[in-house]
Each structure stands twice: as structure tokens, then as C-alpha cells.
């Protein structure tokens, strides 16, 4: 009854091509942003911030990245964890780099955090292009297994080469305390969760907006053509090499930023093992449950997979059941697996598709005929 686009006329091409052509969607979107930026920091307590909202935002960047590669460009990848690790360690090296000493200045000087994150993304993009090269020849599941080479090799590299951890004996990197503006600390142990959250949220909004727009321009359409049938795409004049490598670059850029955000804004200190193959699978689950080839789906999937373990761990306690810890962890595995199968059977196109169906229904409600 309320969700009608009747009477909303578009007078220009720009109005017709905007991201949210329906006014109600626009209002919902701005309300969501307002809530996320203003209301959530006031309401949520530190526990919620640190254990639910921040990991959710970090993982949604990662799943945006993988969705670009797998959902839009059709290149199945299991190397997400490795690329996130690259981002984390690149950010660590950049943020501890003393520019002052390098250029012979009197005072030590460090890169600004914004540049650290950007630089981590760019470095990871370069690594991603390197490991994306085989995709020009290898396709499908063969490529998926080949990307595991990136996953294992990168983790091994960060474990073995002490230069990456600044020769720390434990192999763990810790985020150095840095300010975004004078007086506003965003990383390190002194940073307040709310500042971290707001910084991360702005990052997510910018990245999501960027991804959405890239998907609407010629590059995004070229990716979808490659995904649907690469030979046909090649024949109509899309260069497979350039397009596929661009997908790997942009996807790794996002994953790199996600990794940096994981290390700097979420856990604060991290070791290579934190980005194991489990992480790669988790991100893949997110985009499949959320919806392949959908920006919205990346967020829905990230929310689902981050919230599910929290629910599973706290659920029995809330219900008053007293189950031994090791049984709970096994049951968690089972329920997680069963839910994934359930969701795939019910809606193989993911939560984003469910959302779309709901909107279609809403447009006709309450008179579906």
C-alpha cells in the first residue's frame, strides 16, 4: 500500500539511471545511513560494537570484494584469506614505516591512516593480479583450487619471513596507535570502539558506493559478460585478459582493505593464522547465502554468517540449557552445515533474491491481482 512507484515520473536520463529509482527505496536508504551513523553509536554498547558490528562491517568489505570477483566476473576464488592477510601485513608495514628516517628528516613521521588503508588495498591488488594470471588459462573448479596456492603460499610467506612482522619474535603484528584527525585515535589499544566503528562505517559506505557504480559502468558489464560466457564476450570485443585481471585487482583491493581493517580496527593484533582457509570459506558462504552478483547480498550474507555463530553460542544459554562446551562446538558445526544446505535448497540465489521477491510482493499488496 505504501510501496508504490505510481506517479513517480522520470524527466531525465540521470533520474532514470539513478541507483534507487524508487522514492521509497531512497528514503529507506537514507534512513538506514542516518541510523547507522547517528543512532547506533548512541545506543549500542561496547560489547556489541566490538564483537558484532565491527566484524560484520569488516566481513562485508571482504564479501563485497569476493562478490566482485566471483559473483560479477565469475572467477571462483578460495584465496580470500590470503589476500586479506596481504592487506593486513601491507598495512602494518606501511603504518610502521618511518618516512622521516627514510627521507632524512629530523622528526619521525608516519603515513596517515587513510593512505595506509589505500596503500594496503593497492599492494593487495598487485598481489591479486599476480595470482590472477593463471585465470587466463584455467577455468572453473581448476581455478578455485589454483587460488588455494595463493592462500597457502601467502600465509606461509608471512609466517616465515620475519621482515613482514618487523622481526617480532612471536610472529604477531599489533596495530600502532594512530590518529585520524589530531586528537581522534582510531587504531591501537587506546582507540574507542565508537571512533573505530564510525571510521569503518564511512569506509564501507564509500567502498559499497564505488562497487555499485563500477558494476553499472562498462567495466562491470564487461565482467558480467565474461561471467556468462567468456568466449562470446571475447567475440563481441571484450578483452579477457584486461577484464579478468581488472576483476582480480579490484577484488583484491577490497579484500586487502578488509584485511587491514580486520587487523587494525577489529582485533588490534593479528597473526597470519587468523586468515586461514576457514576465512576464505566463510567469505564464500557469505556471498552465496547473500546472493551472487549483488551488492546488497554481500551485506546480507555478511550479517547472516557473522551473527549465526554468536546466536549458536549464546542461544542454548539463553534457553537455559546446560550443554558441555565441546558438545556445543560440535553442534555448532552441525547446525552451521545444516543451515547452509537448507538455505541453498530454499533459495539458491541467496537472501538478496528473497529480498527482491518480497519487494515485488509488496508492490502488489494487498491486491495481488
Amino acid at each position, binding site marked *: 500500500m505504501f510501496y508504490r512507484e505510481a506517479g513517480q515520473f522520470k524527466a531525465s536520463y540521470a533520474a532514470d539511471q539513478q541507483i534507487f529509482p524508487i522514492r521509497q527505496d531512497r528514503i529507506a536508504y537514507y534512513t538506514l545511513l542516518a541510523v547507522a551513523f547517528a543512532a547506533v553509536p548512541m545506543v549500542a554498547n561496547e560489547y556489541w560494537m566490538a564483537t558484532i558490528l565491527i566484524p560484520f562491517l569488516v566481513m562485508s568489505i571482504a564479501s563485497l570484494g569476493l562478490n566482485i570477483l566471483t559473483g560479477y566476473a565469475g572467477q571462483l576464488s578460495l584465496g580470500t584469506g590470503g589476500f586479506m592477510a596481504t592487506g593486513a601485513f601491507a598495512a602494518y608495514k606501511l603504518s610502521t614505516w618511518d618516512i622521516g628516517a627514510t627521507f632524512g628528516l629530523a622528526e619521525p613521521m608516519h603515513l596517515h591512516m587513510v593512505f595506509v588503508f589505500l596503500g594496503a588495498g593497492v599492494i593487495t591488488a598487485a598481489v591479486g593480479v599476480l595470482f590472477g594470471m593463471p585465470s587466463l588459462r584455467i577455468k572453473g573448479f*581448476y581455478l578455485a583450487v589454483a587460488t588455494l596456492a595463493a592462500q597457502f603460499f601467502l600465509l*606461509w610467506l608471512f609466517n616465515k619471513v620475519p621482515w613482514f612482522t618487523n622481526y617480532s619474535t612471536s610472529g604477531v603484528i599489533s596495530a600502532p596507535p594512530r590518529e585520524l584527525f589530531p586528537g581522534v585515535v582510531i587504531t591501537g589499544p587506546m582507540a574507542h570502539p565508537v571512533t573505530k566503528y564510525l571510521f569503518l562505517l564511512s569506509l564501507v559506505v564509500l567502498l559499497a558506493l564505488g562497487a555499485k557504480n563500477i558494476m553499472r559502468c562498462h567495466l562491470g558489464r564487461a565482467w558480467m559478460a565474461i561471467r556468462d560466457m567468456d568466449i562470446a564476450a571475447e567475440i563481441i570485443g571484450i578483452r579477457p585478459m584486461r577484464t579478468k585481471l581488472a576483476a582480480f585487482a579490484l577484488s583484491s583491493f577490497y579484500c586487502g582493505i578488509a584485511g587491514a581493517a580486520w587487523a587494525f580496527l577489529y582485533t588490534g593484533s593479528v597473526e597470519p593464522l587468523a586468515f586461514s582457509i576457514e576465512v576464505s*570459506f566463510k567469505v*564464500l558462504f557469505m556471498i552465496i547465502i547473500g546472493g*551472487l552478483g549483488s551488492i546488497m547480498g554481500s551485506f546480507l550474507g555478511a550479517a547472516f554468517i557473522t551473527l549465526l555463530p554468536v546466536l549458536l553460542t549464546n542461544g542454548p544459554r539463553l534457553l537455559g540449557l546446560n550443554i558441555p562446551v565441546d558438545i556445543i562446538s*560440535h553442534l555448532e*558445526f552441525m547446525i552451521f*552445515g545444516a543451515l*547452509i544446505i537448507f538455505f541453498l535448497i530454499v533459495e539458491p540465489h541467496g537472501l538478496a533474491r528473497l529480498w527482491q521477491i518480497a519487494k515485488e510482493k509488496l508492490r502488489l499488496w494487498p491486491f495481488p491481482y
Partner: protein
Amino acid sequence: MDFLYNILVAPFAMIGAAPSFFVEVLIGGLLSGVMYSLVALGFVLIFKASGVFNFAQGAMVLFAALFFAGFMDKGIPWYGALPLTVLVMLVLAMGIERVVLRPLVNQPHIILFMATIGVSYFLDGLGQTIWGSEMRVLNIGIPQNPINMGPIQVNAFDIVAAVVAGSLVAALALFFQYTRIGRALRAVADDHQAALSVGIPLKTIWAIVWTVAGVVGLVAGVMWGAKLGVQFSLAMVALKALPVLILGGFTSIPGAIVGGLIIGAGEKVAEVFWADAIGGGIEDWFAYMLALAFLLFRPQGLFGDKIIERV
């Protein structure tokens, strides 16, 4: 310069100085490669018959090994535990076919792949809920002592494993070649729709294939379990089988064997002769890099079906 010397010259000098040691390492690698082939075989069977990339094979290996070890701990001798476990794998295969595969018919491959990852989570949880997560020692009386063959030493266990794998492959080949079901399996692997149209029951065939893969997983689980003990890390063996699989090709049983031999030998040789130069622990990724290098020249693996693409 030093680094290049350590990579390009020193290992070969070492090999040249002690060729019998090199042969020993090589044979050890080949025999341990057979163990990877055992796991890869299960993948190949299912991929051939249903086009599903079954990531749950590793979990099935663990699941079967847990049941086998669990039955034996309950005092059942191995000749009783074996058929019981086969029965469990049969029930499991029918369950997977009914609950997971049937509703997902005609979905894209990636969806089925994700579903099998879900299955592997489920099996990991279920097996450990039933049998607990502590490590079990599986002793089925295979000798572990080294045997001297002329100048080189070989582990008796590895030889037994190789013989078991060899007879398993032979049995599978006979089963596929000479039985009615085997013929039906090959028909389904060749063309689903053609097989359906001549009256081959696809659902039954899938259940059979998953059972066979489960039995292969059981053999792999018993062998790996006897070597490492039955524990959660057994499921990770699947990650070792993946490079074997892409090297040999997803659709070829001989490919799984040859791939296993190449990966096993390459990994051992690299670990012994090159690990010093580039730092230890390279077995995590070396197999993948080796497989990747092969794939660049043959994108469908060594023995895989030629990929023909049409617009």
C-alpha cells in the same frame, strides 16, 4: 647470489653426491603420494558420475575412520567393524542423495559445491558428537618398521598402503568394466540425459556412487588413521588431495594415481633438498604450486577430459 646458489646449485650437488639417498627420498615420496591418491579417488568417482565437486570427501574420510575406530574400541574385531562401517556409509550416501542432491538437481555447479561444504561441516560435527573429539589410535596390525632393499630403506607401512591402493584401483576398474552397475555408472558419467532416456535410474546410481566414494573414503580413512591416528586433522587430508586432483584431472582415475605419485614425489624431494634454501614448512603450498605449474600447460589436468567450449 647466495640464495640463487642455494636454490640452483646446492641441491643438485647434494643429489649428485648421494644418489642412493635421492632414490630413497623419491621412493618414499612416491609411496606417500599413493596415500594422497586414495583420498583423491573418492573425489574423482563422484565428479565423474554427478559432476559434483564433493568437498565433503575429507569429512567422509574422517567420518568413516571415526566409526571404524569407534566400533573397534567397542570390542568388535575389524572384520565385523568393516561391514558395519560400510553400512553406515551406505546410509549416509542415501541420506545425502535424498536430502541434499535431489532438491538441488539442475542448480549451477557452484551451488552444489557449496552444499557439499555444508555437508562437510555437518559430518565433522556429527562424527565428533557421536564419538568424541579425542584422538583414537587405530591399530590394525600393519608393521611400521623400515625394510632394507639393497642400499635403500623403505617403510613397510608405505608398501602395504601402496598395495592396498593398487588393489582398490584394480577392484574399481573391474567393477566399472564388468558389472551391470558399473556400466550404468559409466553411462551416467558420459551423459546424464542419454542415460536417463535409456532407463538408467539416476537417483539410484548417485546413491551407489556416493556409497562407493564412502567406501573409498573408509579405506583412505583406515590407512591414514593407522598412520596418523584418528582425529579431526584427518579431514584436512582432503586439502592435500586437491592438488593431486587438479594435476591428474577431475575425471580420470588413472589421473588421480599418477597425480598422487607426482605430488608425493615432488613434495618429498622439495622438502628434503630445497627446504633449507627457502625456509621450512613448504609442504603446505608446494603441491599447489606444482599443480599450478602443470595446469598452465594443460588446463584440464594431465588426464582430464579435453574441455571443448562453444558459443
